[in-house]
């Protein structure tokens, strides 16, 4: 299976692009600098709005509202970018580096606590995910905790220090994992800590740093494709990734401050 680059969105960010998300139409939401920017599938900027603090993550709920993760807070906007609510008292210790939804709950990755927190729709804490282990959380020397939720409500979380993608139930039970360390075989994860970021649709997409790579796996952990590698600046780290319809994948180049889109090549 092979992918080709179909788009590059550049020149829109000044200092950072940290988080990506897509909505049900395949529109792309990018969290960077101190704003959210929304692009249509052709890569045209359709909307943008500022955030109270530099955003680390973004996610679009089923009703179209946009959740933005920042340092120790989550801000919720309507689809047009109008502020709706600010959750500032969640007990989150550090940057919210990933957001997601499962059932009637909101999931937030707390990179300082090295765990995912689950809240109800009013912001009431329900439970931790990934904290009940001998190291008291995920091993994220890279400073970013990323996860995604599949169509069955299973949470897939990158645990880069273990070179794994772990699966959790919403209640926090560890269900299993894929991946292992390998410094040569591209099917493995290399370096001290990879994969750093991931997205899930009908497959699992991950990014790695040093060597920078975007890759696709099936749910059994079989490598399907190295989507791209040499196109990324060698110094990238924590490249956010998002999946869109028709197998399209968006990946951030954190050095070039650009978003690259890739699509599978028809066999």
């Amino acid at each position: 299976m092979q992918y080709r680059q179909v788009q590059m969105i550049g020149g829109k960010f000044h200092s950072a692009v940290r988080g990506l998300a897509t909505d049900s139409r395949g529109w792309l939401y990018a969290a960077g600098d101190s704003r959210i920017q929304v692009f249509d599938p052709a890569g045209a900027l359709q909307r943008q709005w500022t955030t109270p603090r530099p955003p680390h993550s973004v996610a679009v709920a089923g009703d179209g509202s946009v959740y933005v993760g920042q340092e120790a807070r989550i801000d919720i906007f309507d689809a047009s970018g109008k502020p709706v609510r600010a959750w500032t008292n969640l007990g989150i210790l550090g940057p919210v580096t990933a957001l997601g939804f499962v059932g009637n709950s909101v999931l937030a990755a707390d990179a300082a606590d090295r765990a995912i927190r689950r809240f109800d729709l009013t912001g009431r804490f329900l439970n931790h995910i990934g904290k009940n282990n001998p190291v008291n959380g995920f091993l994220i020397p890279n400073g970013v905790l990323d996860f995604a939720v599949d169509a069955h409500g299973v949470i897939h979380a990158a645990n880069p220090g273990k070179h794994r993608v772990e699966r959790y139930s919403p209640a926090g039970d560890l269900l299993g994992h894929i991946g292992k360390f390998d410094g040569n075989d591209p099917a493995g994860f290399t370096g001290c800590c990879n994969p750093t970021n991931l997205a899930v649709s009908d497959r699992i997409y991950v990014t790695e740093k040093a060597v920078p790579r975007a890759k696709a796996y099936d749910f059994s952990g079989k490598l399907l494709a190295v989507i791209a590698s040499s196109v990324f600046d060698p110094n990238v780290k924590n490249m956010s990734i998002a999946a869109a319809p028709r197998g399209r994948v968006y990946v951030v180049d954190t050095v070039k401050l650009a978003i690259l889109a890739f699509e599978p090549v028809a066999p």
Partner: protein
Amino acid sequence: MSGLTRRALLGTAVRGTVLATMGGGAAFLVQKAHGQVVWQVDAARCINSRLGEAGVEACNLCTTECVVALSAVRAVNEYSKCGRCNICPAYFNITSAVDDLGLPSEKLCPRDAIERKPIGKVDPEDPANNFYEYIIDEVKCDGCGKCAIKCKEPLGLGSIVLKVRYDKCVNCNRCAISEKCPKDALQQLPVGQALR
């Protein structure tokens, strides 16, 4: 780090001091005269730790050019920055074959100067379920920089850097390494600043 680099100092006579070797670098430095300057590696300039370059070979001139046997430069792990990773690219040769435990089978350091120690009790079910401490034996280390370059971002966290050790350095008027350093990374710092 601010200070005077070799090029800024050429032509300026800096009085050297004959130094007696003492236990720790800090203890040694406080005994030096007020206003004295000492040499130090600027990690932001050294090839082995400067950011923004990937795929370059380690520079070992700090080992080969220093007038002191085995060099006065050592690799130092700044623990506050270290990720305490299970697989440290500065400790393991990460492209060597993976062993039965899922770890790279070869170490990186040519002098076997780095020790890997689990922090706390190892989970017998899953050794990856642990933090590991990486301790550099300064008796063995010769400052070759191989570990530092593998520790730097984005592969590692940049916690291992090269430093002049003041219990070994004889504080040459013109540091012999600075004469050859391709990045002009050896700086003369006032003692107070070097201690900080």
